[in-house]
C-alpha cells in the first residue's frame, strides 16, 4: 500500500495561476510526486481520489453558497489545510464586489442575470474554516510553495516571513525607487516575491497583501507628497488584496 503522505489541491473562485505555480516547479515536480501521493490536482488531472488527505492546498475564494459547503467538506477530509494565493487568503480581486452592490454588478456584467447564483461577497477560506497556514501572493512564489510543502512534510515551521517587501528589496541590493520619487507599496506589503518590481524600477503593486504591521495612513501621506493623490493610493490598494484587513484605510 502507498504510504506516502497524500496531497490534494482544491480550486475555488480563482484563475488557476497559483495551482500552475506547482506545475511550474518543473525541476522539483518529480521530487514532489516522489515524496507525496497526489490524490487530487484538477489542473493536472480530473481524477480525484477519495480522502482523507494529509495536506490540502486550497486556491480561490468563497463566492457561492455551494463553495461555502464544499470547503467544509475539504476541511473535514484534510489533516493540514494550507491556503495559497491572494484569492484564498484575502478574497482576491473578485472581492472588489464587497465594496459595491452585487445586484448592480451582476446586471452590468451578465445579459441574463437571473441565472447567476452568487454571494454578495468574496471571502477568504479562513472566514469559513480553520486554516493551518496561509501562503500569500498573486500568484504565489513557487520557491515559497516548495518551502511550505517541505516544512509540512518535515513537521517544521515554514520559513516564510511576514515583514515588508522592503527587507527583501534591500537584501537584493535594489536602489529604493520611492526615495527616488516613484510611489511604492513595498513598505505595506508582505514579503514573498523577492521585491521583483522595484528590481525593475517599478513601485510594488502589493500582490502579497498586507505585511504584519501595515501603517496605511503614513504611506498614504508619502504618496501624496510624491504627487499621487489619495484616490490613486486607494486604487493601488484596491487590487488582488482589496478586502484584506490590513489594506483598509481607517
Amino acid at each position, binding site marked *: 500500500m502507498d504510504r506516502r503522505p497524500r496531497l490534494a489541491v482544491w480550486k475555488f473562485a480563482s484563475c488557476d495561476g497559483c495551482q500552475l505555480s506547482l506545475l511550474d516547479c518543473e525541476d*522539483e515536480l518529480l*521530487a*514532489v510526486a*516522489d*515524496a*507525496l501521493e497526489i490524490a487530487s490536482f484538477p489542473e493536472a488531472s480530473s481524477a480525484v481520489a477519495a480522502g482523507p488527505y494529509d495536506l490540502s492546498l486550497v486556491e480561490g475564494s468563497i463566492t457561492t453558497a455551494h463553495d461555502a459547503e464544499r470547503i467544509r467538506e475539504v476541511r473535514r477530509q484534510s489533516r493540514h489545510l494550507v491556503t495559497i494565493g491572494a484569492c484564498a487568503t484575502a478574497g482576491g480581486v473578485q472581492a472588489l464586489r464587497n465594496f459595491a452592490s452585487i445586484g448592480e454588478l451582476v446586471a452590468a456584467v451578465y445579459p441574463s442575470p437571473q441565472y447567476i447564483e452568487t454571494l454578495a461577497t468574496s471571502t477568504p477560506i479562513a472566514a469559513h474554516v480553520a486554516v493551518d497556514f496561509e501562503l500569500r501572493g498573486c500568484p504565489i512564489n513557487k520557491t515559497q510553495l*516548495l*518551502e511550505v*510543502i*517541505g*516544512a509540512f*512534510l*518535515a513537521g*517544521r515551521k515554514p*520559513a516564510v*516571513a*511576514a*515583514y*515588508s517587501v*522592503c*527587507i527583501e528589496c*534591500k*537584501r*537584493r*541590493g*535594489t*536602489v*529604493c525607487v*520611492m*526615495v*527616488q*520619487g516613484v510611489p*511604492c507599496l*513595498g*513598505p*505595506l506589503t508582505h514579503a514573498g516575491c523577492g521585491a521583483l518590481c522595484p528590481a525593475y*524600477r517599478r513601485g510594488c503593486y502589493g500582490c502579497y497583501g498586507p*505585511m*504584519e*504591521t501595515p*501603517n496605511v*495612513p*503614513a*504611506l498614504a*501621506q*508619502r504618496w501624496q507628497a510624491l504627487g499621487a493623490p489619495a484616490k490613486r493610493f486607494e486604487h493601488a490598494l484596491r487590487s488582488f488584496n482589496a478586502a484584506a484587513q490590513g489594506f483598509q484605510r481607517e
Partner: protein
Amino acid sequence: MSAGANAVIVRETLQGLLEALLAEGYRTLGPTLREDAIVYDDVTHVSELPAGWTDSQEAGHYHLQRREDDAWFGFNVGPHSWKRFLHPPLEPLWGARRNGDGFKITVPAPGPKLAFIGVRACELRAIAIQDRVFLGGRYSDDTYRARRISTFIVAVNCAQASGTCFCVSMGSGPKAAAGFDLSLTELLGADRATFLVEVGSEAGARMLQRIASRPPTEAELAAARAVLDRTAERMGRRLDTTRLRELLREQAEHPRWDGIAERCLACGNCTMVCPTCFCTSVEDHSSLEGTAAERVRAWDSCFTLDFSYLHGGSVRHSTRARYRHWLTHKLSYWIDQFGTGGCVGCGRCITWCPVGIDITEEATALRAPGRAKKQGDAS
C-alpha cells in the same frame, strides 16, 4: 614607506593599483552608477567610477546630479555599504546531506579576497564597529573573520558632505583616520588631477610601491587639508551628543515616540542601510525527500515582529517600542554593550527612510524634557 607616509599619484595611476590588486587575486569593489544611484559593485577599470557625478540627498530623497567638474569621488555614501560584502545579506552557513544512516556536512567554499575602493571615513568607523561586534567578544564569527582579515581597504577622504551627513558630530569623519591600507584625497588641479595618498599599513605600502608615485609638495599637503576643512564645515546635519547616552536612558516615556510611531512604517529600511546594524535570523530549509538540509543566515531587523518573538509573542509589539529600541540602541546602550557608539553619522537611515524620519531631528527633540505619561493620561 611606513604608515602615515604620503605620496602623490597622477589620477589615472589608480588603474595601476586596481590591476595590481587584481593580479594578487583580489575582487575589486568600488562605487559605480546603477539604477540612477551610486552603488558598490565590481569595478575593474577606473572608467567604471562615477566620474563627474554627484548625489543630492535629503530625508527620504536621493537624486543623481551632474557635477561641473569631472571628480571621480565627488559624492557621498549611497544606498549600499560595505556591510553587503563583509556581512552579506544572505549567507548559507552549512548544508547537510543524508548518506546511509548518517549525514555529511558541507560548508560553502570561501569567496575571493576583497579590495574596497573608495571607503569613506564614516564607513571605516562602521567597519571597526562591526569588527567589535563580530570579533571582539567572547564569541567570534569565523566567516566574518575570514573575509575581514584578507580585505584590502582604499579609503577616500570626502571633498564634500551630503545633505544628510553628520560624521563631524559623531567624531568619525570626514578624514579617514584609521583602518585603511591606503587613503586618497582627490586634488583637482588646474592642469592635472592627482591623488594625495596616505599609507595606512604595511600592505598598503607594498601596494603603493607597485605604482608610480612621487613625494608630495607642501602645497599639495595644504590643499588636501583644505579639502577636509571645507567638508567638515559643510555637514548637512548636526547632532549634539553631549550627555546623549544618559539622557536617552531617561526618555523611555517621552511623548515624541508616539509621534514617530505614527509616521514610521516599520519597514526595516533604516536597519538594512545602516552600516553598523548587524542583526540576522537563521533559517533552516529541508528538501522534499528529506535527504538534504541547509542553514542560511539572513539580514533581519529589530523592526520585524518575528525578530523579537520569544516564546508566546513579540516583546516589542508596537512600532513605538521598536523605533525606540532602535534609536536608543544606536545612540545610548550600544556604548554599554560594545564600548563605542552605534552610529557613525553616515546619514543613510535618513536618506533611505521612505518617509524621511531623521535620527538627528528625533534625537534632538528627545533631548528636551518630555512630559512623562501618567496612568490614564490620554496623550
